């Protein structure tokens, strides 16, 4: 049976300081996160700035399983909701805590936007007059530079990786019809020389390989980074780099939800059992073809000689998913209710895409943008190359509520602002993130470092105490709430855990 899809999302945000000298993105990212941390630390009694980076350099925060490119001398913090907030390369990056439910991961990604918006406010207050920090949740600067929104799915290690590759690539290529965040123009000339005014996705331009380890150049549709941040004998973490950052909660829910379902089907070998193989002849070319095709009618060539549009292939995937859910259930994506919501939403969106894509302007980012931009073009008689359209394309993704064009569109939401605000501070309850978040809330001064799979306590004596958390589904509220209520100090906690 498919295992619970423990989920996470990492978002690299675009950043620029307006109104001053030339903006240095690394300095701006550090200033942004430091402003947030110092503002919030007064409330939670946590001095990240003096404590964490130094401790990280000694190695406690950097286990062997951490990504090799983590630059521990840069700002790198763990928040009370269990998330990680740090400077990665030249971007502020927020990684959600681990979630065991598709709704949760969308909620915690939204909480990240609120954290970035708070950071913008705090950091702008520290800047000189006339200056402000602008942070965008998108994936491209419009000049050929991209940055990622990565999805993470925990998989059963025993499933052959070749089966994962075969099973999920057709979905990655064709799900773009609802996951795309839309983009004005094209940043890599199409091979056939066509002119692209607007495309479905931010990211499709930047993919050159089918499978590979890279994330910053020659990006592959399937990224093979193999760091489960958990028991590597039991688990694999599929690190998905091919998607867009969504502003729309509905698009985000459907992006992760449909993919979690497909991956559960792969684990149960459902494609083979159903005799279905949707392998594409040229996945990389198809990825871009789908992104360019606003009419959703471009046929894609399959390896077996058939052709199918992205929409047709999505209908095929949905039909298979329904049969799978009837046979195996969908507990793996957060329970039957969540599973049913995913399938229903998936069907509604495909039906609407088939009947009239523009009817989804309240649900899908690319449709909302296209409708807005077409309206603006009509009104002012603008060509697609007008800089105002490009500015709108960026400003749609601004995390500051007063500037965000997305926020003004009043699109359908899944969560209230109060629920998002709560997720800024409180961890999800059904993964180890609960234990991490609660420990940080109560005992931050005694925590030398925290990581996905461990917390290191400094009890004021040698050696430091490392609490391993290799099992993502242990340390939940159900597991540790009683324990945390009984103990009154970190020392008591360690003692209780050791006995």
């Amino acid at each position, binding site marked *: 049976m498919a295992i619970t899809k423990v989920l996470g999302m990492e978002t690299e945000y675009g950043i620029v300081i307006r109104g001053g000298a030339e903006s240095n*993105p690394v300095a701006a990212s550090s200033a942004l996160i430091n402003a947030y941390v110092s503002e919030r630390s007064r409330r939670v009694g946590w001095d990240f700035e003096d404590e964490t980076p130094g401790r990280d350099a000694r190695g406690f925060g950097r286990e062997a399983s951490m990504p090799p490119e983590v630059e521990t001398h840069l700002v790198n913090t763990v928040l009370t909701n269990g998330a990680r907030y740090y400077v990665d390369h030249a971007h502020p990056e927020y990684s959600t805590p681990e979630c065991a439910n598709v709704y949760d991961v969308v909620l915690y990604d939204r909480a990240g936007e609120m954290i970035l918006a708070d950071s913008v406010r705090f950091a702008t207050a520290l800047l000189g007059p006339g200056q402000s920090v602008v942070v965008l949740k998108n994936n491209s*600067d419009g000049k050929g530079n991209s*940055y990622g929104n990565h999805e993470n799915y925990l998989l059963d290690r025993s499933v052959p990786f070749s089966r994962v590759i075969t099973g999920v690539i057709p979905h990655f290529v064709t799900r773009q019809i609802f996951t795309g965040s839309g983009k004005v123009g094209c940043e890599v000339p199409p091979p056939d020389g*066509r002119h692209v005014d607007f495309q479905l996705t931010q990211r499709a331009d930047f993919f050159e390989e089918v499978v590979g380890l890279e994330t910053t150049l020659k990006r592959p549709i399937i990224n093979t980074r193999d760091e489960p941040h958990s028991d590597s004998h039991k688990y694999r973490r599929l690190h998905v780099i091919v998607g867009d950052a969504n502003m729309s909660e509905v698009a985000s829910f459907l992006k992760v939800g449909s993919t979690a379902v497909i991956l559960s089907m792969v684990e149960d070998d459902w494609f083979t059992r159903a005799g279905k193989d949707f392998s594409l002849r040229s996945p990389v070319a198809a990825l871009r073809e789908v992104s360019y095709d606003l009419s959703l*009618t471009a046929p894609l060539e399959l390896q077996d000689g058939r052709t199918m549009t992205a929409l047709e292939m999505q209908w095929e995937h949905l039909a298979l998913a329904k049969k799978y859910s009837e046979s195996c259930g969908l507990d793996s994506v957060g329970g039957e209710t969540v599973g049913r919501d995913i399938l229903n939403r998936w069907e509604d969106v495909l039906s609407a895409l088939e009947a*009239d*894509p*523009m*009817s989804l302007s309240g649900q899908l980012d690319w449709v909302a943008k296209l409708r807005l931009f077409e309206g603006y073009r009509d009104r002012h008689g603008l060509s697609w190359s007008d800089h105002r359209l490009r500015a709108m394309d960026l400003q749609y993704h601004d995390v500051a509520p007063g500037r965000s064009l997305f926020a003004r569109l009043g699109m359908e939401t899944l969560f209230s602002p109060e629920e998002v605000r709560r997720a800024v501070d409180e961890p999800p309850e059904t993964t180890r993130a609960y234990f991490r978040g609660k420990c940080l809330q109560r005992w931050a001064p005694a925590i030398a470092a925290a990581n996905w799979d461990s917390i290191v306590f400094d009890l004021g004596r040698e050696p430091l105490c490392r609490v391993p958390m290799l099992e993502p589904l242990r340390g939940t509220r159900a597991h540790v709430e009683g324990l945390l209520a009984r103990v009154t100090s970190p020392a008591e906690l360690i003692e209780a855990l050791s006995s």
Partner: protein
Amino acid sequence: MAEREQIKRSTTSRSDDAAVEEVPSTKTKKGDELKAELDDLLDEIDEVLEENAEEFVRSYVQKGGQ
């Protein structure tokens, strides 16, 4: 079917034309209401759009992403 669609592919090089045609169908469905709502939105957006849009677009450069 496969052959028919392969032929169609070569004729869809300007795929955005088709999407532009989708807009009127929505307008006819929901009529003036949708148009008015979009107009209000466009009024508002003019007020919040980055003052120096051209400079903003030009200066927005993001290297070193994954």
